[in-house]
């Protein structure tokens, strides 16, 4: 995302003009734009006019519309963001108060304004929003850490794209592979068919150019492809790709060097965590946000296992730990999922933003916002979306009576 213009006031209100450049930027926009914000972007709107005679004519007109956001709809598979709301600016074709859904497009600027209302209905550019903006703009430009992972087992494959901020499950391949039987060759045949379907799907999802001419002409970089499975399925798949590359599809030879075979415990998507921890993958995806997040979650779970009471999870538990000053200087880490900031409820968002601000500014602890679209974020969501590593052990007997509302 390119930052075109930044006019954030000291009090937190102000506008920002951004230009999304990659599909993942849509995800950032999805996190930045909140209900109640003002969004200005170009739009195509069908306008119907009625003549005096009663005949109607409709035309599609290009407009620049500003809307007050009511809801967002993000499609992670295709990275499309639809923002709907009411129009606030008057144009020749629209009236104030009409509804419109803006489809944000790549390489088209949009302007986002967050207000601080006098009666507190807006939150403005709070620390989290500013942090997200920084992440989105990514001034250092070191985010070339994409990989394609195929997590598979017999008859099941998940093809997913690992990005800086999200893991997108692109497609799931499911086939019934006959089991081995006495004197039956069905199993090997079935596996071959399964490999074939998986490879076809993978090539299609990667938009990999399989034409024979592409071998010599363009030297586009190929993303690393991680093949992960229990047992020998991934290795078998690699062998299959090799054989196909040698026989029918020579363009695949470009893919071969970037293939890494990793072990995973199962073919389900949550095994991806294990895949990304393997040494072979760590060298490829060194120090990506994902790898850091995964490591953090593992640390946290280790602490929890050791039963030192130096780790806690759950909204209420963490808040009480912060109250006790346990998430402070010297190792206190607040781990929070960005799902909580996406809440439609302004009060809810304020609650978490103030908690983050407090830990960071007052207590001096570390705050990590985990992407809920990554595997580690999903693990965190399972724990209630918020967890904390504590500087000293606290006894957790307070949360027994009033914890029914915690399990969200």
């Amino acid at each position: 995302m390119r930052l075109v213009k930044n006019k954030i006031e000291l009090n937190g209100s102000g506008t920002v003009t951004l230009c999304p450049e990659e599909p993942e930027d849509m995800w950032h926009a999805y996190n930045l734009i909140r209900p109640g914000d003002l969004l200005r972007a170009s739009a195509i709107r069908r306008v119907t006019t009625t003549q005096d005679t009663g005949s109607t004519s409709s035309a599609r007109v290009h407009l620049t519309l500003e809307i007050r956001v009511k809801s967002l709809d993000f499609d992670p598979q295709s990275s499309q963001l639809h923002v709907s709301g009411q129009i606030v600016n008057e144009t020749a074709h629209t009236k104030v108060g009409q509804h419109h859904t803006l489809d944000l497009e790549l390489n088209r600027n949009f302007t986002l304004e967050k207000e601080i209302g006098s009666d507190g209905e807006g939150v403005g550019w709070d620390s989290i929003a500013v942090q997200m903006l920084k992440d989105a703009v990514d001034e250092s430009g070191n985010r070339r850490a994409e990989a394609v992972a195929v997590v598979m087992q017999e008859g099941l494959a998940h093809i997913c794209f690992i990005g800086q901020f999200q893991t997108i499950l692109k497609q799931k391949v499911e086939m019934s592979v006959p089991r081995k039987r006495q004197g039956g060759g069905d199993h090997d045949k079935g596996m071959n068919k399964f490999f074939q379907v998986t490879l076809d799907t993978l090539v299609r999802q990667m938009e990999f150019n399989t034409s024979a001419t592409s071998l010599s002409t363009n030297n586009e970089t190929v993303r690393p492809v991680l093949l992960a499975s229990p047992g020998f399925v991934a290795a078998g798949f690699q062998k299959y790709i090799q054989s196909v590359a040698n026989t029918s599809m020579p363009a695949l030879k470009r893919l071969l060097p970037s293939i890494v075979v990793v072990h995973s415990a199962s073919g389900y998507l949550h095994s991806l965590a294990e895949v990304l921890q393997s040494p072979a993958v760590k060298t490829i995806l060194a120090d990506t946000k994902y790898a850091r997040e995964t490591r953090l979650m593992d640390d946290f779970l280790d602490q929890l296992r050791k039963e030192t009471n130096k780790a806690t999870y759950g909204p209420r538990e963490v808040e009480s730990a912060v109250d006790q000053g346990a998430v402070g200087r010297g190792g206190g880490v607040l781990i929070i999922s960005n799902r909580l900031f996406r809440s439609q409820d302004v009060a809810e968002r304020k609650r978490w933003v103030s908690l983050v601000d407090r830990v960071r500014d007052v207590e001096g602890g570390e705050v990590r916002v985990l992407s809920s679209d990554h595997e580690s974020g999903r693990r965190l969501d399972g724990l209630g979306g918020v967890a904390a590593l504590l500087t000293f052990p606290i006894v957790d007997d307070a949360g027994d009576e009033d914890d029914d509302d915690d399990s969200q």
Partner: protein
Amino acid sequence: MSRHRVKAVSYDEDEYDDGYYSPDPEEQEFLEQCTTEVLNQLRAGDPSVTATRSEVQDALYHYYDDIEKSVNYLRGKKVKELQKKQAAAAAPPAALKTKGTSVPVYPEPPLISPAPAAHFSAADFFRDAPWLNIPSHRKAEILVEPLYPRLGLLGGAPESAGGGKVSKLAALAAARRKKEGDKAAAATPPAATDSTAAETAPKAASTESKGATLSLRERLAVSGKLQKSPSDGHQSLRSLGRGSRQGGSLSGKKTSTEPEPQESPKQEEAASVTPEPKTSGTSEKEDHTALNIRAPPSTFASAMVGDSTRPKMTEPSHLSANTLDLIRIYGQDLTEPFDFAGPSPDDVVINAQSSAKGFKSKQPASKSAGDKKTQADLAGGMNNLSVEEKVNVKSKNLDVLSEYKKAERKRAMNFAVIGHVDAGKSTLMGRLLADLKAIDQRTLDKYKREAEKIGKGSFALAWVLDQGAEERARGVTIDIATNKFETEKTVFTIVDAPGHRDFVPNMIAGASQADFAVLVIDSSIGNFESGLKGQTKEHALLVRSMGVQRIIVAVNKMDSVQWDKERFDEIEQQVSSFLTTAGFQPKNINFVPCSGISGDNVTRRSDDPNVSWYQGRTLVDELEATEPYSHAVDKPLRMTIGDVFRGSVQNPLSISGRLDAGSLQVGDQILTMPSGETATIRSLEVDGEPNDWAVAGQNVVLNLANIDPIHLRSGDVICRASAPIANVTSFTCKVLAFDHLLPSMVDIHRGRLHVPGRISRLLSTLDKQSGAIIKKKPKIVAPGTVARIVVEMDQAVPLEAPTRIVLRAGGETVAAGLLE
């Protein structure tokens, strides 16, 4: 090329005209020759018959001038006519009964036996048909216009008989033939009359076959000359039925002569789709004028309405009865004397034969149709027709439980072979099978050769069970293999589980089918120790948590430690202490020192002097000493699909597995979950033998019909629609934690069923013995404690209490327990 020239080319048409309308002299001459030839042959033949020239020429025309065929045809026809005449003359007056029931009982005409005819006789054939005894006074009511076969060989399918559009050419030809026939009738009254009519008899009979109503109506429609004799003063039943149906004006007073509504309707006749038969006097007059061109009644028609030679019968009482249900008469008696809906005698015989052979042949769709087929039945039959052919498998409706009790079978048991990777499980079982002659020596030698070829000679025995190419190449069992062998008392099914940690899901699938387990332990130095930390422990815990009570510990590879008794004792002591903590009772644990590769103490006692210290039982003896287990035979049907495969060409879709509960038989409807689709069991195999039924505890292969394979996956559950298993997305279970439990992603295993899910809540930790709640809402559950947890899944899965499940995460078993 000009357009003119193209237009001028019309000689094709000319030739066409020539061929049909003005036969050339050559052809005429040839026809004459043939005709005389045929006539001569007819006269000379055994039953000497005569025929008119025109008849002969007609026959020749239809048989494309084939003299022989024409002669045969004509002779057959004439002979029939002769017999018919004799029969008619001999027919005595038949008494007529009142028709009281819906199925009228018509008096059977006395058996008339003309000279034992070798030829087919229409009269004979229709002898017992109800319409044969139509009172003679009605014989002249219906004059059926002879139906000539059109545009085809004689006796061709009369699809459009009378109903379809008649081409000009065909109409002309028909008119000409009719004229000729009439002329012939005038010339040779009895014989020729019948001869022309008889020509149509086979056709009329075939028309009658199924759509009796239709063909009759058509004929009525066509024959405008259908009339009634005013003298007899009675309405034709047919016209009455029709009248009441169409006009509705006609009441039950069918005895009235010439009812008004039918008298006038000239236009009505033209307008109606099926014109009214003319019954008025005017039409009578018309008939008289047209008499000379009218054809004599066909054999069939005369059979229908009686014959002039037949003695007159008394007036049927039902005609004078006031409360006669005309429609019933019309609809049932006259138009549907016999329907061909039921299976033909041939079909009956074939079905009986096939069912005797145990064949499940496809039953005709109309099998259930009764002898009275109404329109509704027809409509229903149409609905039953679908594009996809349903396979109907006939159930034998056995009482499976009593069959089961009756059956004198050897007891059957399944056991799982478990243990750490490379402990020698497959080899030990291969040895067992080889020594018990469950596998022939030739195959074994082949395996040995092939294994040596790739440098894995010691794996030859394991290849008996490791059939996969990958398994053989790597020397590792990947998936479970089942194999069976018999001893004197018992049929055992081996479920050989993989030992590698990556394939624990497959091992769980295998262990879920087992009654007891054989734990194979590698006794060699170092391997035992690593195994105990590895899958030896995990497997033992898993089989225990899946309900296995008895475990036989085969201390394998004893030859590699020179049958050292101390080593054996050490292993026995360590393993038994571990197994008792895992929950096995000491009396259910047995140890056997053995060697799979050499076969010592597997089926035969070792003759190695070093083994003299061991006086216990061999492995097979231990297996046989196991008590059989009872299964929930009378519970609702449950079976987890182990595999979906293509059995053979006859059985394109088969599933295998072990019946967990209940029973089933061939022909049963089953329900698969979670897809909720039904299927029919076409046939089934129990332990590889075809059988009609199966009960819980047996390993079966079900050959299914009427289901698409995409609805079946291994891990799905088979049940009955009457007692279905529920698909759930979340369940509460009581588990024993093997690892730290906290809300996280887990894999849920139950037999072959293997789905991703997550622990969403930890409800409480429980006391191991009493089950009392120790702590509510724990943050984390420590290993070794019992806890109640809630597990959620993304997809609905067939699970019900009390089912034993295993939770795994990151390649390790984290918990096992019971659904609540």
